[in-house]
Every structure is written in C-alpha cells, then in structure tokens.
C-alpha cells in the first residue's frame, strides 16, 4: 500500500531511542507498540475523525471512517483507503487531499480539481490539538517501558 507520511513532531534522538529498544527484550517493543496504539486510539484517531466529519464537507464521513490506527512503535494513524466508497467510484484517498487543498493544490494547478471542492478547507492543518496530551502520554510510556525493561 503506497503511503505518504507526515509527522506532527520532530524529536531529536528519537531514532536512537527506538534503536535502543532492540537491545531490550522483544516484549519491550511489543509493549511500546501497545502503548503507541493506545495513544493513537485515544488522541489521534478521534481528532482526525472529528476534523474530517466537521470540515471535510460531504466527503467527511467517509474520510472519517477511513481513519485507522496503525500498529507501530510511534503512535500513528492511516487516513484514506483505496477502496471505492463513493457512487462515482472515488476512494477516500482520492477525495482526502481535495477536501483539504481544493483547487489551491497541485490538482488545482493542473486543472484537475473538480469544482465541487472549491478552495478546500485546510482541515488537515488544524488537527493538531491532540499533540500535547498525546506526546505527554507517549513519552511517559516510553519512560515507563525503558525503566521497566532495563530492570527486569
């Protein structure tokens, strides 16, 4: 599945931290994935779903339904999907970008953006309120797991 990645936060040394997890028992990484999933489930997914529902126009519900929690060591969600969900055959992925950027994006510049999307609502750039709580929770989980597995 082709994916595009975006990141909410840039953390110096994060790669080192994740790399160091390899030196801990496998259970530590599994626990980190569990914790990350929980954080994504609690903070990220609801925020993205709500934003899609509220600001992505008539396509919002389908986009919101496409928000899935990814199992990874860092909390993450997938938004979109390739399956056809609209009557015309469009998939959530096809409409996601257009609801956000509309004709201001590349599709607009190439005259390929349907007029129905207008200028878009920029909704994806405003879904960041969860970051403080999510990052706090995840950072605590990292601390807890590192501390725990460096003892046990």
């Amino acid at each position: 599945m082709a994916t595009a990645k975006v990141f909410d936060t840039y953390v110096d040394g994060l790669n080192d931290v994740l790399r160091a997890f390899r030196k801990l028992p496998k259970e530590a990484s599994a626990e980190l994935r569990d914790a990350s999933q929980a954080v994504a489930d609690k903070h990220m997914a609801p925020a993205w779903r709500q934003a899609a529902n509220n600001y992505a126009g008539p396509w919002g519900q389908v986009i919101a339904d496409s928000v899935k929690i990814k199992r990874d060591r860092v909390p993450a969600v997938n938004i979109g999907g390739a399956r056809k969900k609209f009557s015309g055959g469009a998939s959530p992925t096809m409409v996601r970008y257009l609801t956000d950027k509309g004709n201001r994006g590349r599709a607009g510049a190439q005259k390929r953006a349907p007029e129905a999307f207008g200028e878009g609502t920029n909704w994806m750039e405003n879904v960041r309120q969860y970051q403080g709580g999510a990052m706090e929770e995840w950072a605590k989980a990292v601390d807890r797991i590192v501390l725990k597995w460096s003892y046990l």
Partner: protein
Amino acid sequence: MAIGKTLTVYLAADVSKLRSGLAQAETGLSGFGNKLTSMIGPALIGATAAAGAFAVALAVDGVQAAMAEEAELTKLNTTLDNLGFGWASEQVNTFVDDLQFATGVTDSELRPAFERLLVSTGNVAKAQNLLNLAVDTSIGANKSLESVANALGKAYDGNFGALGKLNAGIDASIIKNKDLDAAVAQLSGTFGGQAAAQAETLQGQIKILGIAFDELKESLGKGLIEGFTSTGGGLGNLSVRMRDLQPQTEDLGKKAGILAGNLLDAAFGAKSLADKGNELLQGILSYGGPAFELIGNAAIDALNPIGQLISSLAGVNKALNPGGTSGGVTAFGTGGAMARATASMKDVAAAAETAQKATSSLSKATGGASKATEVMNPRLRVQIDLVKELTSKVKDAGSALESARREMNNWISGMAQNILSGIDLGTIQQFDAEGKRTGQSLLDGFNKQIEQAGIFGNYLKQLNSEGGPELRDAVAALGPEAGNKLAKEIIDQGLIPTMQSKLVDVQHMAETTAAEMVPPMLVAGVQSAAGYLMTMQAELDESTSLLEEMGRKMGKTLSDAMVAEIRAALAAAGVAQGGATSIMAGTAGTTAQAASQANLIAGSPFLNGTAIMQAIQNAIQQSDQRLGRTGQVLNA
C-alpha cells in the same frame, strides 16, 4: 501530501527528517542554533529518561569544555606568573570574560591573543588595549584574531612585516618607519568600534548567546570536575553545604536542561525581533510548526511545574513584546502565536523555500537588525534575570521528578524482592529427617526455586492485567510458595475480577479506618516534618549566593547517574576515578541507553537486585530451553 496514497500521520519523527528538508536553512543558523536543535528532542522524551540523559550529555560536553578551558587558563596564568603579573590573573580573566560577551569572540581565541600581546608589551594594560584593537581589526579586516594579534605583537617587537601583510590599509610609510603609535592610531581610526557594531547585529547577538550557552556548559563541567577533585577548603565547605541542600537541588541536570531551554527561547525571541530573523523563523516554524508548538505544549502538559515556568516566561515575554511582534518565546510558551503560524502554514515545499530565501538574505539584514538589537539588549538582560529566577522555580519540578523516580524504584525493588523471596538455598531439601539423601541435588532444588519465581512473576502479571494492582500486590506479598497456590486458585476459579473488586473495597475501608485512628503523635510527627521542610526552605532561600554559584557547582549535586557518566568521561580522558567506571563500561551511545544506564546507576541500591533478577531470568530461560518449555505459565 501526495495524491493517491494513503496518508500516515505519525505523532513523532526523528528530527533528522526535519533536518533533511531544512538542511540549507539550518546551515544559516550559527552554531548556537545547531546546539539548540539538539536540545529540542530530549525535552520531549518525558520526565525521567530523557531529562536525565540530556543532563548526562550536557555534563559530558561540559566536562570536556571545562577541561579545555582549564588548560587554557593554566597556560595564560603561567605566562602571567612568569612575567611577574601573577597578581593580575583575576583581572585579566575578568577582562577576557567581559570582552567575549561584548564582542562575541570566544575566550578560547582571546586568551592566546592576549598572551601573545602580553609577551611583547610586557604590560597588562597595553596588552589589553592592543587586544581590543586586535579584535576590532580582525573583525573589520576579516582576518583571524590570532594573525592580527601576532602581527601587532611583532610590530611591538620592531618587526612590521606581518602588520604590512595584513593588508589593513596601513600607510607604507608607517610600516617603513616602524612607527607603532601611528600604526595603532590608523588601525583605531579605520577599525575602531567594529567589534561593538558587530556584536549589536543579529548574528553577533546569536553568537553571544552561543557563548553564554558554552559558558553554562563549561560551568557545569567545572563544577563536576571540582566535585571530584576538591578535597577541602572553600570548595570543600561549599560541597558540604551543597550536599546539605541536595534534597532540594537534586536533578540539577534537568534544571540545566530548562536553563538551556530558556536560552533557546531567548535565541528565538531575539531572532524574532529582527525582520529578517523573523522571516527566517517564520519560515522554519511554518515548516515544523506543529513540532515547535508541541514543544511548548508538551513542556507545559508533561511537566506541570516546568510548564508553569514556561508560561510565566511566555507572560514576561508578552509583556516585553506588547506589539505582539514576537514569534519566539510566546510561541513556545503558549502556542498562541504558533497556532497562528500553523494556521497560515503553507505546504512544505513552499515553506522550505521561504526559509531558504530568508536564510540567504539574513546576512544582508544587518541594518534592520542593529536597530532591533538596541531594543533587544535590555530584553536579553531580563532574560538573564529570568534564568536566575529559574533556579528556585525548577526546584519543585526537580524534586517532584526525583520523588516519583524514587517511588518507582522502591516499588520495583519491593516487587523484585517479593518475586525472589522464594529463592533460599537453605531451604533446599537434599536430606530427609533421617539424614538420608532425598535424591534432589542442590542444583535441581535451586532450579525449582528459580522456576517458582518465574511462575510467580507470570501469575503476578496476569493478576495485574486482568485484575489490578491491589490484587497483584496482595498476592505478591505472600511470596512464591503461597502466592503461586493462591494465584492458581484465583485464576482457575475465574475470581480475578471479584477478588480485585472486594480487595479494593476492603482496602478503602481499611484506609478510612486507619486514617481515623492516626495517633496524635504521628500527626505531630507530620507537623514536625513540615516544619523541618520549611526550615530547609528558609535555608535554601538564605543560600541565594550559593545557588548563584550552582551553575559552576551544580555538578556536585547532580544525581548519581550523572556522576557515574562523568567518571567514565574523565576516565576516558585519562583522569581515572575508578569506581563506577566498570559499571559504565561501554559509554551510553543513545538516549535510551543513557537513560537506562542513568536509571540503573541512579538506583544503585537496587543494582544488585537487578543483576540478580537478570541472572535468574537467564537461568529460567536456560532451564526452559533444557526442558523444552516455551516459557508458558506452569502449574505450581
């Protein structure tokens, strides 16, 4: 955000991903900026691990810097002594220190230059004047300070060749006539005030902030070295006093991180005051907007006392920027300005382009920046005062974190003891009551005990996950033998939720009852403890001067983790201290390793327990392998 692909939003990524996109913009920032980037991450990795690890990293850098400075100072002081100016060493050091902050030229450059000029002039005052001129000339003529000082020194000795080769616009006749006064006058006329003007530019201010940060690190390292080497006298007394204050000042490494964070705020606040700097900042912020916003949010949310501090800092900054022009500290502290910046965020490519353009034009922006820095200087002063004020404010955060860590260590220690309580070589039955062999070898008996410990641990995990901590702790307190039987019964009969619920109720009842029965003497004890804490607080307040020295002495009060790390660093540098070196073998190369090691060492009372646990786990695994088991829960 590409079209036609499923989008994955990650909460966090390594800053290298940001760097890769912003490489050019990053190089536009001076060294201080780069140092700042390296601080951003650890502040986000949470309270226990990263703060400690960052403090360790800072301290290691600090030790190295302090050792280098010590060597430079020794060299200069020896020269002063040899020339009969030993009495002036303190004055010279103050002069160099002041000059570096006034000009943005580091003391590492100034000291050798001063030494060179002193050798030629044989006069401290003349050497100081010539050093001022050399700094002006080096900046104005774009030459290294070393070459200018060398040329001036040679000219003072009568050799004007090097001065002529500087191409600093000195008349050939002056060179030919070897007229030093005229040469000095001409250089002063041409380049006088260059250093001061340079220092007032945006780049100059950032450079000075960089020096301030380096000095902070040096101070930290100096304190650590002195902490290891001082044996008495004034320093010893101070050390004793600092030890007395340790309960309040533990985890100063974390505070150092906060101090550095303040400098970060200052740097960005300073940049935001200059139009071009602001443009650059906005470019970067709009690119990594969410990240920077989160720095403020995470600091506030994750570490409440520190968050309050940042909030207060943001408030002060807001007061300093009534026009709301700053995108720096306010943005970091409250996210308000950042929210606006984020809202106006363009796509990544456009933002990166803006940042790059801003970077390229930054160097041309000295005019506007100079005006801005006139306003900025008093603000920097306020910032310095804020840093001082910080010491008391972060105290609460440090002690809160420390107590949380201690609590967790205690818990881990207690739980490990519970699990291990069944390990007792004395109870292994090799002989029956009549003294005949039972057929069980010592090793077999020990393996059984180990096995019981492993099973017990698994039971406790299950009770914890399906029930709760109350049930887990209650069973853990029984030890492996009785605990395994009880746990098996509870699990087999499906009683975990019921037992947990009843246990919570009965504990609540017991606590309520116990609270009602607290004897008066205990209440008095609590009051006494509160009084003691207040006395300590008063003592801390009285020790303001000591706390001001903490920057220099803070190493003495750092946690054991840092001490161990520094010992390793010192040992690596040839200043072997012994002791913890073996524990720290293999210096931590990553944040997590550092955090892990820091925690291990910080919890050194539990180190033996940890080692035992690891050994037992290994033994369990080996035993499992021998018996072909897969580590599943076994019936007792």
